[in-house]
């Protein structure tokens, strides 16, 4: 909150407009310049490229065809649908783990609370590529899970669907962002007044009713923050589907990569990137609004 007092140092050189202008400039010119040159300008350049005909097409001038082609191509629609499925299922799995886990961390583990939170932070610090590599080792045709199951006689032949499938992408993605799903929900849990639980119980509510009617509305902002932090990286992920997805787990991030680096069609790649950016922005605005509204209500 802005206090009523003037900014520091301001009262000594009271009213100096020079000071008022110079001070923000001293602190913010370098960061803003960097963002302007290497964040905003590349975005604008990408938009211009996306609005231009490709070099290969032999035409020149502005066009919307890169966007309309991307939207109308049935192949891309199918990929978009796969991407939506994978990202949504991975998100739901994470929420199914994260909500009870956040509850347990906040209220049930006593002195283990901080060590377990550190474990969560550590899980995020571990290199994602190392994690993908480890899952590939476990899930492969000759991987440890198949070999293990065969050696104890549960299965006769390796289960091929474990790796290079939608399943493996979902497994890898669900474990990649768990930290960012749990911690906002945990923070919301910590803010809940626990007397409410007892009050609900005294009024005759069972644990299901208490969870649904008392706890869930209170932690809803945390859930929306988790969605905001996790769902966007999930649906733009490109390394995991490339390394464990095979042909059935082909996602939009790979389309961008293939257009830009394999085909060399920068214009189409830029258009596809911007469409994904627009979808992310739309999603972010909705999640942010919901989080804010919930916070105001409670």
């Amino acid at each position, binding site marked *: 909150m802005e206090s009523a007092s003037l900014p520091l140092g301001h009262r000594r050189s009271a009213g100096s407009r020079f000071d008022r202008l110079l001070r*923000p400039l001293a602190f913010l010119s370098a960061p*803003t310049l960097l963002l302007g040159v290497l964040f905003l300008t590349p975005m604008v350049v990408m938009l211009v490229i996306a609005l231009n005909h490709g070099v290969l097409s032999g035409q020149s001038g502005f066009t919307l065809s890169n966007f309309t082609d991307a939207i109308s191509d049935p192949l891309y629609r199918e990929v978009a649908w796969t991407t939506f499925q994978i990202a949504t299922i991975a998100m739901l799995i994470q929420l199914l783990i994260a909500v009870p886990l956040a509850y*347990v961390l906040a209220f049930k583990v006593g002195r283990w609370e901080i060590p377990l939170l550190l474990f969560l932070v*550590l899980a995020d610090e571990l*290199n*994602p590529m190392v994690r993908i590599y480890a899952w590939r080792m476990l899930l492969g045709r000759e991987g440890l899970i198949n070999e293990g199951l065969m050696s104890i006689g549960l299965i006769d032949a390796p289960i091929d669907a474990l790796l290079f499938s939608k399943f493996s992408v979902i497994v890898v993605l669900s474990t990649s962002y768990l930290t960012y799903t749990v911690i906002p929900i945990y923070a919301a849990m910590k803010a809940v007044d626990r007397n409410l*639980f007892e009050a609900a119980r005294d009024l005759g509510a069972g644990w299901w009713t208490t969870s649904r009617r008392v706890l869930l509305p209170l932690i809803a902002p945390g859930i929306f923050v988790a969605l905001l932090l996790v769902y966007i990286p999930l649906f733009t992920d490109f390394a995991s589907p490339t390394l464990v997805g095979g042909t059935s787990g082909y996602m939009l991030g790979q389309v961008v990569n293939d257009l830009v680096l394999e085909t060399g069609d*920068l214009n189409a790649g830029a258009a596809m990137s911007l469409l994904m950016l627009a979808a992310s922005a739309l999603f972010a605005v909705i999640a942010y609004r919901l989080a804010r509204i919930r916070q105001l209500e409670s």
Partner: protein
Amino acid sequence: MTGIGAEARPISIGSGTAPPSEHRLPFRRRLRRRMPAIASWALVGFALVLLFGPVLMLALFSFNDSSIISLPWEGFTTRWYEEAWNNQQARDAIVNSLFVAALVTAGSLVLGTLAAWGLTRLRFRGRAALAGLHGSVLVVPWLIIGVAGLIFFSEIGVALSLTTVGLMQLVVTFPLVVAIVSAGLVRFPRSIEEAAVDLGASQGQMIRYVVLPQIAPSLAAAGIFAFAWSFNNFEISFFTGGFEQTFPVWVFSILRQSENLPMVNAVSTVIALAQILAVIGAWQLIKRLSRRRGSQDDAIQELMGAVR
């Protein structure tokens, strides 16, 4: 799901023994009473296995004396570590990543702290817009920033190299420092700064003796997160990188070409171990820095600040 209303006082594990009367209860009632605690720990165990099990297996099999990563166990060896040590590409990749991460961390701390101070302590027109600009970087997917960077550099004719990687990583990493340090600055009342100035402290003294000690834990947390973000960053290094590979790009290119190699297990194990030590070290540092301010809760706030 654990029962929320199932017990009068939530039993915290390890906080003591069960009440004596419990021994006389029939086994099923005892089990029933213990169910919430058992379910809680089962869930914690499940999550830990999901998060760390694969990496532990990876570490285990870096010592297996077999050139394919599979059962049965062929005996203990350290030859994969020797092979990794002698692999020039692996060494280059790690050195490149450490180099970039060190520079990006230093740059992010400077730029991020400047911006955080400007955005939280100064009032000027356009402040909200600038804060929004810094925040928006954190929401745009790295894939898209990477592709935009690639297109931008190719349009202006700049060759891709570790420099372009470092610059683009700086762009996505320093707003994280802005977020963490701003949160630290907002938490402590600026009246203390004003008091210092009123008591005759110069701007420099005020920053040195009042502000820095207060935001030191935030700076430490921001530093460790910035380093990890840069070191682990794949998308941006992949799209805006040239010939010199960073560590994640190196692992990616190996995985794309071939099956898993035990040598990569060995390298990954060393990296994971270093990251575990880094997190523990950072935690100790943050705890020490925030001691004068209060509890462990404060310290954990700092660590989690990056995530929220």
